[in-house]
């Protein structure tokens, strides 16, 4: 598979009130192939929490539903641009909500 090995500079931030969910605001050089799962894994790694917390990600207020690469392509950007990525605690999955 000819995967694009490019990387992009990412800075994570959150508006969560809970201080234990805040990461340091230093930049991270990460593969552009990352999607929500991979990003969530990174934030959890940075937070070092005992129990993993699933996160959703937003760039410029827009929920990320694709890879970073697809986002950049859609916006006409390249991996030379650094990204400010917001994370929020993932909302409960629809199947779970339906059981209420």
């Amino acid at each position: 598979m000819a995967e694009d090995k490019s990387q992009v500079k990412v800075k994570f931030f959150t508006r969560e009130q809970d201080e234990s969910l805040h990461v340091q605001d230093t930049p991270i050089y990460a593969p552009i192939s990352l999607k929500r799962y991979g990003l969530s894994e990174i934030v959890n790694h940075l937070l070092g929490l005992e129990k993993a917390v699933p996160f959703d990600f937003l760039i410029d207020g827009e929920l990320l539903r694709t890879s970073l690469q697809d986002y950049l392509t859609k916006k006409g950007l390249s991996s030379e641009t650094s990204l400010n990525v917001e994370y929020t605690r993932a909302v409960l999955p629809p199947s779970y909500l339906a059981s209420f």
Partner: protein
Amino acid sequence: AEALEEISTPPRSVEESRELWHQSEISTAELSARLSEQLRLILEPTLATKLKGDYKTGKRLNMKRIIPYIASQFKKDKIWLRRTKPSKRQYQIMVALDDSKSMSESKCVKLAFDSLCLVSKTLTQLESGGLSIVKFGESVKEVHSFDQQFSNDAGAKTFQWFGFQEKKTDIKKLVAESIRIFERARPLNTGDQWQLQIVISDGLCEDHETVQRLVRRARENRIMLVFVIIDGISNNESIMDMSQVKYVPDQHGNLQLKIDKYLDTFPFEFYVVVHDIYELPEMLSTILRQFFQDLASS
């Protein structure tokens, strides 16, 4: 035809580039004298040249020649060593400036231009040999070649090629292409010829392992490579705090996420991090001195 036009037309007008060059000259005039003085000490050979053989008369006997001398019934009589005249060490120096978009995104442009102006002007004053200026990003382009005479006007014209809009920073291509350019420029009679490359960049590049292999190959070809990282001027972030995501297989072959300091795997052994143009002369001479020390002890 349109694509060709795009490649052959520099992104900046000659007037604008002259103005930018002029500004950089003003910003670096004082520093140039300082850098020149320091580099002269480092680049010029200070050691007396070694004794060399084989001569019929000379300063000291070459012990390796004595037995063949006797065995040959004293016919092979070139048994003396002489101190040969000191030769001026010649350098071909290439300055490579990062033209990728991350440079303009992180507001490195002014410092990048100042650095290029400072380094190229100083090296020309040293009359060290040829000077080449290269730009890199997605591709590599030589914007001033070794056989061209360098001048303020030539310098200004190189600025024309830097738009800092390239969508990739291909350091692998830069190193590979530089080796080829140096190879072509290397004179046939390579007595005391050294080739030095100074890369000026924000330091953001991928695939450190492959780059490192290429850097080693450059060194085998007697190309010295030093990397000047231009760092976080606009904001409070620094490449020194940056980390990097990697996925490393564990003993079961499952990829494990690892987050390390970015500079821990930076593929250039000789690099400096510069925040201000005033730091450049000191930093550059320090790293070059280190390089020569390392070379002498290896």
